[in-house]
């Protein structure tokens, strides 16, 4: 039960982190157009954070 609560708290932390990363003002840092490896930086950033959040949640829950 204690472990389950800890997992829950970690997930809440991930939620807060995710909210900060994909909202103003952090998001505006990546707004100026530009490409990285041929792909617009903003697209890469948003999808990257998205994937990272999922990976974090999977890691927290399954490990």
């Amino acid at each position, binding site marked *: 039960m204690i472990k*389950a609560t800890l*997992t*829950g708290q970690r*997930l*809440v932390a*991930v*939620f807060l982190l*995710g*909210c900060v990363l*994909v*909202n*103003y003002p952090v*998001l*505006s840092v990546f*707004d*100026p*157009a530009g*490409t990285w*490896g*041929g*792909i*617009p930086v*903003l*697209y890469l950033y*948003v*999808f990257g954070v*998205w*994937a990272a*959040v*999922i990976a974090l*949640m*999977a890691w927290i*829950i*399954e490990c």
Partner: protein
Amino acid sequence: MTGSIIVVASFLYLAFLFAVAYVGDKRADAGRSLIANPTIYALSLAVYCTTWTYYGSVGRAASSGLGFVPIFLGPTLVVALWWFVMLKMVRIGKTHRITSIADFIASRYGKSQLLGGLVTVIAVLGVIPYIALQLKAVSTSFSILTHYPAIVMPAKSETVPWLADTTLYIALMMAAFTILFGTRHLDATERHEGMVAAVAFESLVKLVIFLVVGLFVTFSLFDGPEDIFSRVAEDPALRHLTGMEAGGNSFGNWFALTLLSMLAVMFLPRQFQVAVVENVNENHLRRAIWLFPLYLLLINIFVLPIALGGLIHFAGQGVDADTFVLTLPMASGHGWLALLVFIGGLSAATGMIIVETIALSTMVCNDLVMPLLLRYRWLALQGREDLSGLLLGIRRFAIVLILLLGYLYFRLAGEAHALVSIGLISFAAVAQFAPAMIGGMYWRGATRPGALAGLSGGFAVWLYTLLLPSFAKSGWLPIEFLQVGIPGTEWLRPQELFGLKGLDPIAHSLFWSLLVNIGAYICVSLIRRPNAREAGQATLFVDVFKQSRPAGDAFWRGSARIGDLLPLIGRFIGPERARGAFADYARSRGVAGVDALPADAGLVHFAETTLAGAIGSASARVMVASVVQEEPLGLDEVMNILDEASQVRAYSKRLELKSRELETATSELRSANERLKELDRLKDDFMSSVTHELRTPLTSIRAFSEMLLDDPRIDLTERKRFLGIIVSETERLTRLVNQVLDMAKIESGHADWHNGEVSLIEVVEQAVASTSQLFKDKEVALTMDLPESVPILLADRDRLVQVVLNLLSNAVKFVARGEGRVAIHLCDTGEGLRVDVADNGPGLTEQEQIVVFEKFRQGGNTMTDKPQGTGLGLPISRQIVEHYGGRLWVESVAGAGACFSFLLPCGKSTEGSEEAG
């Protein structure tokens, strides 16, 4: 491609889907559930992705770049909170057999039929645009595909007569299919395992097909994503799509959409249905927390390439971006791929429509129609034996009605909007459930009027700022409505309420409706205390995880008969099923059979919960109340029950405290026991010391007496010497006995203290006078240093003299003959009067400084030297000084003399004497 091929392919697919559902149901009946694993659960949650995602995301991306992302980012983030929130919802749902979101809210706020009805109305009206969206997507894709290989955008539906409109037939076909899926029989728990299996399957289908199209567009039509993005970067008309501000996006709207989708993914009726009602095992939630967002990411990964690729490919051709997923394969001549895409879209639409309409029809039946029937046609219901058929009929009728309403909205307003805009209207409607739901799970003080006020206020604002404007935009209401709202009230413009500008309509409506909703919910709840029933339900919901919470049957009191309850349940879920459920319950209670069940609160609670699974908690309450005699509980009694629960907690806390106290008491006792043992040992030591000390003089007295007795020829001088020794030994014996008695008296507190006014100067002088002969005999110099006057003490003069005498005689005992010097010094320190007796004798080691104050311990080596005293002088002196609140101590360095001092406080000696007297 002819319409018939498409229709045949569609029916084949739907038949296959039905087969999956059929197998799922059969396996469930056989007890080998097909859906009892977390991956299936996560896939069924993906019913969130409808044709909106399948076609609409591309359309939105084509106009606003990343604008489609918040709809999926919100759920991705909010599932992280499901560990706490959704788990609680599932646990509550299972405990109380909640069948829908309306049931949840109604049950929480005192099983209120009114509240259940209101939630149902909001849900139906709110979700209808969403269903219209699915119909629009299927009919549009169908119409486009029939023109293959040409790409022709479909004509406006208004130009087609109603009965010739394919959309109407699609709606009716969907209704038939849903009825087949969801209402073949009535289940006591409202769970549909076959449906969940089919939904999970269709989730897989739409994902795979969308990924195939994405790969095809990205790598077959173009040379990978770099190719698409580099072409976009070269095109000035498209370049802006790679930034945040594309298509009227702003950070404010982005945030609003994220929040909106967070709420929608929890409170859409179909999401509640698959996540809470259809949940098989709470543990499935764990994996779903990351698997479901992963699904969302995968299905969106090719949205931007398809959207941008479509914009490049169809530049200037007037192709609707909502159809790119379908038209891109068509344009490149891949007819079969296009057919597959259509099947995928159909899959997404059917999944959504089936789950949504089943959830809505359950609500309509349990929370809208049943209460009305119970109220106005109670007598008619009374005559029927089996009502399960009636229930199913109501649900089937509701399904057809909801789909027809969806079609109606599609005809009236659907054409004017893109897919995503329609869906967002529904999202904003279901977001109104959030305060009552979340507040209900965590806030005990929320009341039924509060929930009613919040929901109706938020719903009214939504209606005014979002739904009516959507009619106005499509020309069904006068377009002036958007500019002025209700004539004469410019500040009430629907999409600029109170002059609020700068937000898009969705964010604007979300802000105002949630503000009104939460504000009313809190303020109205705070007007009065929760009543008995609200307080009881609040505890059952808020404390669902607590072990010591009161059970559901704690809040019922009255009398019932099993002969009334069993037929009642049987009428709604069928007599056999009811008897089976009661038999299971009897077994769990350890009773022989159904008829042996005691008709107590537990049984009534069980019957009510079972019935709630079929007709909703509010209706079940009314039904059960109609066949049992019950006494309503007052608020005080409910509070007492709640208190009992907290009393149990308090009691266990007190127990813990007690046991801790016991532990400390035990350890105190143990140490007291140790002390007693030590004292006992000291007593023994004392006794043996005393007898030893008594024997020494007795031995010598006896020896000399015997000598005198035995030998009459001893001359006179010898005789005198012997008698002198005997006398002095007898004196020593007397002194010893006196001192032992003295010591015992002082220690036990029975000593006589003859207190009077004493001057320490006189005491010292008297003691010095008494010992002067001793000093002379041993040729020891004694110096006195006395002040002229000292404060008068109230004490026993003889005792103090005894102390000084003792110190002086000790000093003279240990100094060397002829060279010895002893100094006595009296002074008045701040603390009190202090007497020092210093000598230049051998001094004391640190060890000796401690032992000299113990009884019968003497300075010097007792093994070799002859003891010169009783060994009780210092202990007695110390007792006397301490009796008057003072202290006696020694300072010494071995080989350099010793200084014994005592200090008597001036004030305290008086008090000490009073105590003693």
